[in-house]
């Protein structure tokens, strides 16, 4: 306990709430309120409506939601596969190779996502691989963006893993593939799950790389939110943002439920 007197503690808590509530809670509340607002020129909206959600439920907005969900699902699955493969393989590699892998797989975190998009645009608009204008390039870009997070969390979990179980299995004669499949992967399941959820959420909200690359037929929800707010339809944008957040949260909660079940097993 850092401060003992009641007054000092009240002061600290008061300052905390005064800073944290407007900064972190107010943004969510306003977006949520705005998504139901008919017009908002006073302190509070003048009237409420659900028309923005009705508009979000069909037409191009619904397509955009499906596009986002499909992109995020494929990209996070691919990122988890590549990232955890690399993290697990790096454990058995030599120290120098491991450090190299670590650096290379974390590099996409440091490179601006706009540059990742520019690179894909430059690289795949020319032979030998032509991907520009397809949905594949968007999914590939999202995969590149989130692989670092998958790698990071799986690598962190793998170093915390006690080697005794794997060593015991190897000592009993299990082949490396069997050790991996029956021991390592089940033990890592909770963190694999968490990594999948994180990758999915990040891909759902990804805007910058998508803005660089999206083709006319594959328009994810964040781009549509930007287009709506850019032409002044801010309430539609807010409703779409709430839809985006809600669908992300549903998937995240689903992932965490899976995780608890994996822990009970």
């Amino acid at each position: 306990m850092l401060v003992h007197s009641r007054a000092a503690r009240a002061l600290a808590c008061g300052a905390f709430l005064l800073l944290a509530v407007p900064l972190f809670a107010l943004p969510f509340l306003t977006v949520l309120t705005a998504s139901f607002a008919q017009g908002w020129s006073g302190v509070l909206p003048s009237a409420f409506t659900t028309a923005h959600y009705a508009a979000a439920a069909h037409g191009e907005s619904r397509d955009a939601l499906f596009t986002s969900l499909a992109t995020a699902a494929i990209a996070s699955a691919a990122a988890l596969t590549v990232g955890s493969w690399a993290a697990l393989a790096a454990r058995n590699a030599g120290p120098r190779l491991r450090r190299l892998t670590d650096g290379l797989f974390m590099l996409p975190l440091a490179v601006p996502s706009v540059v990742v998009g520019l690179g894909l645009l430059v690289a795949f608009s020319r032979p030998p691989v032509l991907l520009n204008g397809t949905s594949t390039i968007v999914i590939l870009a999202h995969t590149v963006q989130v692989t670092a997070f998958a790698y990071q969390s799986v690598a962190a979990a793998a170093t915390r893993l006690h080697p005794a179980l794997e060593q015991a299995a190897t000592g009993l004669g299990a082949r490396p593939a069997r050790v991996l499949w029956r021991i390592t992967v089940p033990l890592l399941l909770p963190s694999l799950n968490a990594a999948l959820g994180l990758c999915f959420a990040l891909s759902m909200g990804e805007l910058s790389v998508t803005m660089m690359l999206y083709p006319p037929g594959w328009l994810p929800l964040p781009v549509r939110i930007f287009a709506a707010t850019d032409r002044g339809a801010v309430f539609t944008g807010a409703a779409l943002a709430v839809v985006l957040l809600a669908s992300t949260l549903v998937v995240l909660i689903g992932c965490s439920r899976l995780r608890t079940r994996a822990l009970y097993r």
Partner: protein
Amino acid sequence: MASAALGAMPTRPRRTRVLRPGVWILPPLAALGFAFLYPLALVALQSFSPDDGGHSVEPWRQVLASAAFRNALWNTVWIASGATAGCVVLGFFLALVIAFVPFPGARALGRFIDTFLAFPSFLIALALVFIYGSAGMANSLLTGLTGSHGTPIAFLATPWGVLLAEVTYFTPFVMRPLLAAFSQVETAQIETASSLGARPWRIVHQVILPEALPSLAAGGSLALVMCLNEFGIVLFTGAKGVTTLPTLVYSRAILQSDYPAACVIAMVNVLLSVALYGVYRLCLRGRHRRGGSRAGA
């Protein structure tokens, strides 16, 4: 389950295939090379290839001399440094209260701030439009109170709006490692310092801060890198008035199709961010080493 499966296995020793363990790292490295390193190398190459053919430093010379680039570079650097300073100060205070001045709901709030990390950044920018925009809550509250017309708060489309949004969005990135470091601080140390008569300010300064400094540096440099690279927030809030390096890359490449110039700006941005990211990794390594020596002692 695993033990049952192993119990059923034959106990005779098997021949293990001789395969260097390092080989298994090659497929994911190849995938990364194809999707990330090869495009990045082409960006570097393209930055030396002007549109009229051949290879020269002409794109670099033109871009580095242009006022738009210098303006964007200056904006990027000062907004990112300012936002990081804000994040570090604010994050340190908030994490300190959550960890050492517990009050009901503090932990839940900490967890809520944690979920911030998975949310898209442009959401914050969108929210700020409703709060501080020209027809937003704060302005109508002020005009209602003072009876004046016009917009008393008009900073949203300026760099300050971007700065505020970035502080909001990136503070949790500083808080998370700090909370982890604070949980390592011995309560006994604080109690001892406190019973010896040290004021809270002195305890923070002499006991907690030295312990948390590596984590603070790590979180701060991560926030700095992410601020330098931020695109969504700038696009949503300051799109008309504020250009940073990422938005300049976007407008040169997508709106003007000037790829060599876009690639030059991209390379500058990459060099800046990767250098800072190297600092972040050094901070992390320092933190681990400290942690290791503590555990060994």
